[in-house]
């Protein structure tokens, strides 16, 4: 089969202890039978490990953080596009998604395709809106309070028993077992991530996750459920195993069908001892463990790129159960020239 030549730009090459999905996404594309992809790595920092990994990216470009302004970011992408003719752009980091979603039309008009959720889908699943999301789509979610003042810790004590989860709007979560710990977590999160700080009812059970891909018309193109077997102190999976759980699959299909989700997603669920499932978070992009899905038989990166290019994609319903991933750290020895090039020229 002749592979289609494409130029694919990918972010999230930060394969650190808080990894982005860029590197595993590229691994999936390199195993694709449909694409012969020229890979453009887009990085924010000059020490993102993906820059230095052999045989991963053909070119690397540094891009400005979205916090410095969407226009600056998109102009840089357009500038890179003039040199590299990007066919598809896959953003993999939460913080940049809003900028790329907002500029989807502008990028498309330049010939750069994306496949992202729309703003409504993106915003209604935000952590501080989870109770409304649960109500609207008839999904069990833990109760929560959005806090903007320390005084509201009293409200949460009236409503829930300790422990409670104290979460940032975008990132970070702490278990608080008493008022002191809740106050400490409130301050830590507010100073790092701003307001609201979310106090979420603690649901006892096992955390399980699903990676999925929606076609934007209500169809589930891919879905693989997983349980984390080894979790780092940042709460990241360092090992995981695919599960045979039809209830998780049903829940995933139901969410994608009701929301008409477009793009990759990760559902974070708590399975209680009574066999009930509580949705605790929806991440609006593929997670860093996306390569487990590839290994289990569903090449989600390939399917996502096909959808971005407007190709027909058959829903994948089978995957290997009991497939595991075990992450590891590895010291790459790097010549100074490469570091100097990305630091000084902002490209390699």
């Amino acid at each position, binding site marked *: 089969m002749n592979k289609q030549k494409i130029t694919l730009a990918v972010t999230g090459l930060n394969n650190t202890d808080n990894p982005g999905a860029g590197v595993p996404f590229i691994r999936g594309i390199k195993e694709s039978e449909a694409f012969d992809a020229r890979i453009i790595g887009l990085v924010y920092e000059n020490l993102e490990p993906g820059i230095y990994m052999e045989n991963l990216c053909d070119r690397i470009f540094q891009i400005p953080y979205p916090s410095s302004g969407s226009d600056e970011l998109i102009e840089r992408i357009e500038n890179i596009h003039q040199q590299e003719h990007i066919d598809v752009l896959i953003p993999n980091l939460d913080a940049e998604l809003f900028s790329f979603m907002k500029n989807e039309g502008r990028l498309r008009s330049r010939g750069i395709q994306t496949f992202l959720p729309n703003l409504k889908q993106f915003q209604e699943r935000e952590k501080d809106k989870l109770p409304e999301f649960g109500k609207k789509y008839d999904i069990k979610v833990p109760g929560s309070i959005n806090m903007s003042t320390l005084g509201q810790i009293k409200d949460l004590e009236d409503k829930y028993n300790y422990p409670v989860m104290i979460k940032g709007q975008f990132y970070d979560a702490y278990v608080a077992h008493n008022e002191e710990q809740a106050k400490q977590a409130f301050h830590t999160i507010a100073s790092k991530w701003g307001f609201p700080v979310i106090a979420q009812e603690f649901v006892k059970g*096992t955390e*399980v996750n699903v990676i999925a891909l929606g076609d934007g018309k209500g169809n589930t193109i891919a879905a693989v459920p997983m349980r984390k*077997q080894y979790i780092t102190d940042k709460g990241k999976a360092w090992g995981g195993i695919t*599960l*045979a759980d039809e209830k998780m699959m049903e829940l995933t299909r139901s969410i994608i069908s009701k929301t008409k989700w477009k793009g990759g997603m990760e559902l974070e669920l708590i399975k209680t001892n009574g066999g009930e499932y509580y949705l605790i978070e929806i991440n609006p992009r593929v997670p860093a463990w996306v390569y487990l899905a590839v290994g289990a038989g569903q090449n989600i990166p390939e399917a996502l790129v096909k959808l971005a290019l407007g190709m027909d994609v058959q829903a994948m319903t089978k995957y290997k*159960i*009991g497939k595991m991933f075990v992450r590891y750290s590895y010291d790459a020895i790097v010549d100074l020239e490469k570091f100097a090039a990305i630091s000084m020229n902002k490209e390699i």
Partner: protein
Amino acid sequence: MKITEDIKISDNGFVFNSRTGDSFNLNPFALELMKNIEAEKSFDQIKTEVMEKYDIDDLSFEKDFYEFCALLKHHQIVLQDNPLDFK
């Protein structure tokens, strides 16, 4: 009492629950008991076979077997509608 269809038992005693992702290691005797439960042998049949093969008294076997079954149930390895059903 029935082993759920999500359970895979290897000949070396490795047990994997594909629904929960849990895995367990069985010693040779636990594996023998599991194979008997999997074959849907009755409690009396298992007891007779074990007592013929090993030096164990009636009461000790019953106590240990019930404890083992409770553990299997706790880890969702077996289904047991009736708590007194060990057959």
